[in-house]
């Protein structure tokens, strides 16, 4: 179809419209027909009804519900954050307190242990000293007794030996003198 035939078609269309207008008036020319108008209105009404009832209503409800849930979720998350922060602070404080208490307990235990140790050492020293002094005393007593007994034994032995040696040669006077002298030497 070339340009010329298009122009001819346009002229034809304009002539047709002019004829229409002359016969049917403006509304008829524009194609207004009350039956079609009503039918189109009903069609549009159906579309609006479907859009409202089946699309906007359920989806709008879902959108609102989702928005509410998201808002609630965000609020909850904020609340949880705050709770967590509070809990962390409480935990830190508790840890600090516990650590201090533990330090205190350890210190007290250490002090007690040191004290007990000191006391035990002192006591042991005391016991040892006591034992040593008792031993010293016993040894001294034993020594004294032994010396005394040895002296006694020796004197008896000296007397017996001297008697044996001098019995024949000495008279009683000489014997007596010898004994005295021997005793002096011993003493």
């Amino acid at each position, binding site marked *: 179809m070339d340009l010329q035939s298009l122009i001819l078609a346009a002229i034809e*269309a304009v002539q047709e419209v002019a004829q229409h207008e002359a016969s049917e008036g403006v509304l008829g020319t*524009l*194609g207004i027909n009350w039956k079609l108008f009503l039918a189109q209105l009903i069609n549009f009404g159906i579309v609006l009804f479907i859009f409202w009832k089946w699309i906007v209503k359920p989806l709008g409800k879902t959108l609102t519900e989702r928005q509410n849930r998201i808002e609630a979720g965000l609020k909850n998350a904020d609340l949880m954050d705050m709770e967590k922060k509070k809990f962390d602070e409480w935990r830190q404080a508790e840890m600090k307190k516990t650590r201090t208490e533990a330090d205190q307990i350890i210190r007290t235990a250490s002090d007690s242990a040191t004290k007990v140790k000191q006391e035990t050492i002192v006591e042991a020293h005391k016991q040892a000293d006591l034992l040593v002094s008792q031993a010293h005393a016993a040894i001294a007593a034993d020594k004294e007794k032994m010396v005394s007994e040895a002296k006694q034994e020796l004197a008896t032995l000296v007397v017996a030996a001297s008697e044996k040696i001098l019995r024949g040669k000495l008279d009683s006077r000489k014997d007596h003198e010898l004994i005295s002298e021997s005793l002096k030497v011993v003493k």
Partner: protein
Amino acid sequence: MTITAAYALPPLVAEPIFHIGSFPVTNAYINSVIAVLLFLVAGFLLRKKTAMIPKGFQNAAEGVLEFMLGYVDRVTQDRKKSLKFLPIVGGLFLFILVSNWMGFIPGTGSIGRYLLVHGERELVPLFRPANSDLNMTLAMAVFSVITSHILGVAAIGFFRYANKFVKLGDLYHSLRKGGISIMVAVFEFGVGIIEIFSEVAKMVSLSLRLFGNIFAGEVLLTVIAGLIAYFVPLPFMLLELIVGLVQATVFAMLTLVYLTMATAELPQEAHH
């Protein structure tokens, strides 16, 4: 039905393909019914989809819904009002958009029946964009304007709403006050009467704007495709895609503005 490539200019009026009784089933009406069926399928798929973690189609639908809600919020500045208006405004937007873009489906304008038109055997396309029929756009425009009035009355009461157009209340107050305020009230009464006409103008402008844009797009694409069939129409098709989106947005936004204005509380007058 015959499949053929035809480049005749689309007529201003949607052509009847067949009749049910005295009701003429036009090609634009067929497209509008197909759009309704598409919505029916979408609605049927989405009506039970209320998963908290959305997937697939529900996710996409929610995305579109939230996007539209954001736009509506910007005009109404009130989430409650937005949720109330969304079914109307969103429905209008999606229906117009789907109808407009359906015109790009191959076969629209080219698949048709040979019928007797004005005594001649012509190919009448089976499908024609629903919004290139003034009945469709006028139906939506009338619905929008009437709904805005109904919601306006429901929001602020019948007498206060009626006072926006027939300002008898203001006139009465000004008579009690006297002086220059009577003059102001008389002028405002006149303005109120003009407002009534502007309501009619709203319907006419809404419907003709959409119809004109979509119909002109169809004519443009037919002419370009008639001149050079391959590749050259592509930029024009892209343009028409944008026009389809823009016109859907304009229609929906204007309706939203009418709804918001109609349900807005009246400003406190000086003499109250």
